[in-house]
């Protein structure tokens, strides 16, 4: 059993945030990990999608699922993150007023991704973009 899912996200379009996590949730429900694990995975993917929409120009989500777990890679073209340690701090945010009015941008996304995943790796180049890879074991 190995399933690969691929999605594209346009930056700035908030209606796009949730498409990947919604589909991944439906697929995981059929594959059978427990509800708590599914929620952790989809919350992490959703937070990452919101980050792409809020900060980047374009993003790609690749989810690879096998019997042992799920690996999700979110790669965006965007401004990048200057200081990843700083961005991981709860409350640190560069989100716009519009993003905050939507109920996001409180500087909690990256730390919530860390909380909900078993392994997390973030790499970023300022002016080019950011890649977030995380893995959850079933």
């Amino acid at each position, binding site marked *: 059993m190995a399933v690969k899912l691929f999605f594209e996200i346009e930056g700035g379009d908030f*209606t796009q*945030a*949730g498409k990947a996590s919604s589909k991944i949730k439906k697929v995981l429900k059929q594959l059978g990990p427990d*509800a708590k694990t599914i929620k952790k995975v989809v919350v992490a993917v959703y937070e990452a999608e919101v980050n792409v929409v809020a900060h980047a120009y374009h993003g790609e989500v690749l989810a690879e699922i096998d019997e042992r777990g799920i690996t999700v890679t979110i790669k965006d073209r965007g401004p990048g993150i200057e200081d990843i340690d700083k961005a991981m701090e709860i409350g640190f945010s560069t989100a716009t007023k519009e993003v905050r009015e939507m*109920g*996001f941008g409180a500087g909690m996304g990256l730390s919530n991704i860390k909380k909900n995943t078993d392994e997390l790796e973030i790499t970023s180049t300022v002016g080019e973009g950011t890649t977030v890879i995380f893995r959850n074991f079933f």
Partner: protein
Amino acid sequence: MKISEIIKHTEARVATKNYDPDKNLAKAFSSDLMSDVLTLDEDNILLITGLSNVQLVRTAEMADIGAILLARDKNATPEMIELAEENGIVLLETPFSIFKASGLLFSNGLKPVY
């Protein structure tokens, strides 16, 4: 607390079709900050909020929220209703403020998440 009791206490309208009035929600959380909602470990709760947009319903979908109560007489949009129905989330609309709706539900026995 049953959905039917939440409706009675908050004089709410139901925006979604085909809901189960006996669906039971053990706890509630009031917030306009979706980032906070996404950090909750509890599921099948009532979310009371002043926000009204599609991301609210998306957040509820990912966080396994059972029902949403829109406060301050906010109306759900057709897109919100469609997404909620697709995911089995009950959308309610109350004329009361978040404070009043939360207070009424709390005093009638609905427990907080924390």
